[in-house]
């Protein structure tokens, strides 16, 4: 429930710093916005999703989930705020504090999720992807800490100015492809066929896509360490993402029911954005449009679309559980779709789509006289979309609590 607040903060920076933000990826406002979205919104939802999905998909609940979940969330919230304000104000103390807090958070999270993954059964390729994603998160963190040390001028981490951008690219690649991409793939193998009743993913894809991404990233990292070009590695990883996105669109095209809902629209947007971002990246396109496609086109889209399915399902399921446990059959539990009405979800998606298009136009043509206003309007639309998403979440949660009280 706290994740949308970070996206709202990112939207606020877009509105206030529109002139800085898409002109260069290196502006403090851009760096802060990206980390607010990547850590505060995306990683927070992904961590929460892992806590919820492991018992449902792999029959392996996380031990002391409530305690570990709370601790992880507090550490992630604080770490993200320290880091983002450190980047925004160029404050060294906050950068160090942010890096260390996030390190403790990732270690705790990795320990708890790693233990649950060891006990997991079934859903072989999903569990494998989750393990790789955890490794991706560790490497992203390690590279992030390395970059902070470099920014602070640590003696042991002296790299040439030109190398700095390449290390940032590697950090970005591990975060976007190794952590987010790999986890999305693993979860998609289960939820795409489940939510939209599509044919299952082909075995060849489940066997090869995640290993291709991880192998590509390892090759790129090794090449970077040896001072060689990273394109072969990145190319392999991006091919894995591209093929996965194409197969996902194909599966969804062959779904049993022709109905189109907000979750499906979000998936289509995310997969199209992922493919465009991968192609632009492979062809050496400018970083700013790639960033908008990756962080807004995928990073905001997929969690939003998934929340529309997962929150109502969990609310409905826990009420069912309480009803059966207490034998309170006099209370009529609402249908799952009543928790977040489809019409509201579609309006929220429309707002989001406006924000994506505006930000993308501004990123593609930053030289336009009104591009600053495109960013600001895009920021406002993002704030509207995220604010509405948050309200729908709160409404779902209030409805759950109200019925939960009646079942007590």
């Amino acid at each position, binding site marked *: 429930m706290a994740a949308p607040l970070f996206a709202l903060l990112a939207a606020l920076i877009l509105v206030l710093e529109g002139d800085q933000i898409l002109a260069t990826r290196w502006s403090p406002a851009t760096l802060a916005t990206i980390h607010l979205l990547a850590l505060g919104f995306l990683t927070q939802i992904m961590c929460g999703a892992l806590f919820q999905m492991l*018992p*449902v*998909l*792999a*029959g392996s609940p996380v031990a002391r989930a409530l305690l570990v979940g709370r601790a992880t969330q507090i550490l992630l919230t604080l770490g993200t705020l320290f880091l983002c304000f450190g980047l925004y104000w160029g404050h060294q103390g906050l950068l160090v504090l942010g890096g260390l807090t996030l390190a403790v958070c990732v270690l705790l999270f990795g320990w708890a999720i790693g233990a649950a993954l060891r006990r997991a059964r*079934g*859903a072989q390729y999903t569990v494998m992807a989750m393990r790789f994603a955890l490794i991706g998160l560790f490497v992203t963190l390690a590279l992030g800490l390395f970059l902070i040390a470099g920014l602070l001028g640590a003696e042991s981490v002296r790299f040439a100015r030109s190398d700095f951008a390449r290390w940032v690219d590697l950090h970005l690649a591990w975060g976007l492809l190794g952590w987010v991409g790999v986890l999305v793939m693993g979860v998609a193998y*289960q939820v795409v*066929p*489940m*939510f*939209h*009743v599509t044919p*299952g993913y082909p075995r060849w894809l489940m066997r090869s896509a995640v290993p291709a991404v991880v192998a590509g990233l390892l090759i790129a990292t090794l090449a970077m360490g040896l001072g060689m070009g990273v394109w072969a590695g990145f190319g392999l990883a991006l091919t894995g993402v591209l093929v996965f996105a194409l197969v996902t669109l194909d599966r969804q095209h062959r779904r*049993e*029911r022709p109905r189109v809902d907000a979750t499906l629209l979000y998936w289509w947007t995310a997969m199209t954005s992922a493919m465009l971002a991968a192609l632009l990246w492979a062809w050496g396109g400018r970083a700013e449009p790639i960033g908008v496609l990756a962080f807004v086109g995928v990073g905001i889209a997929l969690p939003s679309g998934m929340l529309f*399915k997962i929150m109502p*399902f969990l609310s*409905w*399921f826990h009420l*069912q*559980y309480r009803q*059966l*446990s207490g034998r309170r059959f006099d209370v009529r539990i609402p249908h*799952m779709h009543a928790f977040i009405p489809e019409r509201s979800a579609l309006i929220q998606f429309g707002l989001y789509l406006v924000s994506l298009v505006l930000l993308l136009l501004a990123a593609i043509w930053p030289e336009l006289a009104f591009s600053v206003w495109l960013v600001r309007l895009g920021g406002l639309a993002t704030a509207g979309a995220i604010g509405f998403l948050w309200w729908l979440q709160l409404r779902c949660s209030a409805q759950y609590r109200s019925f939960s009280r009646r079942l007590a």
Partner: protein
Amino acid sequence: MSEPVVPQVLDVSRLAPPEPLERVLDALADLPAGRPLWVLHRREPFPLYDLLRRMGYGWRTLGEDPRVEILIWPLANPPSEAELAWRIPS
């Protein structure tokens, strides 16, 4: 000689959540007393197991994604050998 198996089969493999869970709970409520239920699913329904445990049912799961068979029975009436051996036709 054991009784001939008269299987009650519920196919939820082409339904979206939460319909599989709803249909299984409805089918269990309508089931003749003491009879088992065979469910054909596309994945192992871990959330269902929690509910079955609460409701006093036992279960046994066979197969893997995308074809999973779950045999569910009231704990007071364990399935016969013939019922345990019966499989849902492909």
